[in-house]
């Protein structure tokens, strides 16, 4: 651990004797917990589309996310902390993404990289496209851009670090336990179209309403 890191960690009101600087810090549990998490955010190794290439560039020599402790791209969700949703989320792919998210151990974060993951992007109107991963997952940082340049991605990741710095163990959603999808999100499935289990009553009501309308129109036409 570097001296500066320790100085960051130390609470402002406590003076450390000069002979102990670099060896000792007085801090809160939240702070050390956050410090640990923000300094080794391991992204999950999966890319969806164009943005994934910029994500690889950010990992490669020129931008080198290793400088932030983010170089360990894990192919397994079990070993990763942050899911960078890099690219267009399609209906066919979204069940797999949700399943991966559910398998990630908390604390877990989601970064929506690029226009597509944030809100559908240029392909939003497409019949197989999910208009933003935030329809299913709690997104922590949105990075606009098509695609965001590697520097923009790193900027987004720094924003995520800042967000983590402000969190408290008492209030993070996975220890809160009040929300039912705090840790696991119901996995959507593929029927005649994409079905989100949380919206089944809504879909059923709407479809019934449409059927009733159709029946009303049909006799009139006859």
């Amino acid at each position, binding site marked *: 651990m570097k001296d500066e890191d320790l100085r960051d960690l130390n609470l402002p009101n406590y003076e450390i004797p000069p002979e102990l600087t670099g060896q000792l810090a007085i801090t809160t549990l939240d702070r050390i917990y956050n410090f640990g998490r923000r300094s080794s955010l391991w992204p999950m190794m999966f890319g969806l589309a*164009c943005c994934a290439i910029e994500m690889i560039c950010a990992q*490669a020599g020129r931008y080198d996310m290793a400088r932030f402790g983010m170089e360990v791209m894990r192919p397994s969700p079990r070993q990763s902390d942050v899911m960078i949703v890099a690219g267009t989320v*399609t209906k066919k792919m979204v069940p797999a993404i949700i399943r991966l998210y559910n398998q990630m151990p908390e604390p877990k974060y989601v970064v929506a990289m690029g226009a597509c993951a944030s809100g559908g992007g240029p392909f939003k*109107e497409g*019949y197989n496209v999910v*208009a933003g991963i935030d329809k299913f997952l709690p997104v922590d940082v949105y990075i606009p851009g098509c695609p965001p340049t590697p520097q923009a991605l790193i900027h987004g990741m720094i924003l995520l670090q800042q967000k983590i710095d402000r969190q408290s163990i008492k209030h993070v959603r996975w220890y809160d336990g009040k929300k039912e999808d705090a840790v696991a999100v119901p996995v959507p499935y*593929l029927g*005649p179209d994409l079905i989100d289990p949380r919206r089944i009553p809504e879909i059923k009501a709407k*479809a019934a309403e449409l059927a009733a309308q159709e029946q009303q129109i049909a006799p009139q036409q006859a």
Partner: protein
Amino acid sequence: MTTPAPAETLDLAARFPGAVSADTRPGYTGWIVTPEKLLEFAQFVRDELGYDYLVNLCAVDYLPENRMEVVYNVFKTTGGPGLTFKTWAPRTDPIEIPSVISIWPGADFQEREAWDLYGVKFIGHPDLRRILMWEGFEGHPMRKDWQEAFYDEDVKPFKRRWPDGKHVYAEKRAVYGDNINFKPGFDPEKWTPTDPEEALYKSLKKYKSETTDGIETDHIIVNMGPQHPSTHGVFRAVVVLDGETVVSLKPVMGYLHRNHEKIGERNTWLQNMPYTDRLDYFNSMTNNWGYALAVEKLMGIPVAERAEYIRVIMAELSRIQNHLILIGMLLNDLGAYFTPALYAFEERELILDVFEAVSGSRMMCNYFRFGGVVRDIDEDSLRKIKDLVFDRLPRKIEEFDRLLTENEIIVSRLKGVAPLTAEEAIAYSMAGPMLRASGVPYDIRRADPYGIYDRFDFDVAVRYNGDMYDRYLIRVDEMHQSIRILQQAVKSIPEGPIASQKPSYTTKVPPGESYGRVEGPKGELGFYLVSTGKPNPWRYHVRTPSFVNLTALEKMCIGTKIADFVAILGAVDIVLGELDR
């Protein structure tokens, strides 16, 4: 090269009286064949006329004429112009057309795509399943009368945007409040799911258990992907294994199917240009070129002289960075981890700097316009390009050569693995480096020249073993050839205007069809376009090398080890944006 007599002069209508007629619609070429005689005609075209290479097959929905057409573009692997023929059936279900898979096995995936998106039933296709959407999806989305949930209008620009364009999220307008659609009366609780995977597993060679040496052994099914570190994106392969040996394999795609063609038919002609960037997102420059070429063919306009040179420079730079990444990633797939890829990305960054300076974006260049390019290369960028092609890139390619080519591990992992003969490669419609590694010297830049490639002195790289090692070497060869082209191009680039047309956001395109093809770094990239004279294309089809090249994946993988599958897939050089569109 001597060009054989163009097919247009042959009177095929006389050869097949009553079954074949010339396509006389204005702007159209080729022949119209009745479905009954299609196979006989195709056999004749392949065996007697020598059109052995089917490159494109797609359906076109002529809704007003109640006509579903299937278009075939065939070429000769000895070079020269191609032959277009079509067959059609009335648009009432079931739409049935005989499958040409027995004549050109490369039609496999393309027919499945036409079935998936248009509902054209290809009689005689052994495995006609949906390919981009999932089994159980309702409707055939590319049909002209099929509307998506976020449907706004048939064509852009949408009236909702201006002059009274108060912002509304598409979700607010959609019936179900999201990008989903169900039939009236649909009840998700009572609905019994049809397993979308069932047909897939049925199509695999039956898995069996057998007893060898008194030990009962089982074949196992392994699903790789859609999230897998070495499938190069959201690609999935279902593999049946006997021990470690691949017995059967089916690629599953569509996990990045983002409806490029449906959106493309709503877009105006120009609006499609930035969308093509996102096909093969490594090579937006060549994608732009392919599309520009097809539209320029339809419009019948020339390209400004200086722009022709700029196009060649950009396309060849693009090819070099693509091949560098391919080699780096191939080594990744072989287990070398990240070092070669890191070296490759370093060179790519320098090329991307040039792209960014001239076009404004690293990856999504959106640089070509009909008749030219959007802006000139400034002195500074030209100097950078010269530095790269005369100094840095030759040095670095040579360094790659030293780093990898003779490495014993690489040689033993690649030599003799997954060979494909020339005949097989042609039959499966392989394109680009994959075809040339199998000993077929077919390069569109020479075989069916476009742009100004006929002015440059370069060789068509070809290797003859068709194995993995040759697929690696051919990429190195091609980079050397690209450097040669680039050196000539930057020396001889003339001054002058960079566009033959005035910049305008509207484009007048006369009615007709065209097929524009370029030699992309991954293989033949073709655009089949139909214009009705309106501001939007009636049909916009992209024939992508990644998609068609995968037709032979199963053939290449059977009998190899599962670890080699990863490398074989890597050497095909797929990119998901182009594979799934």
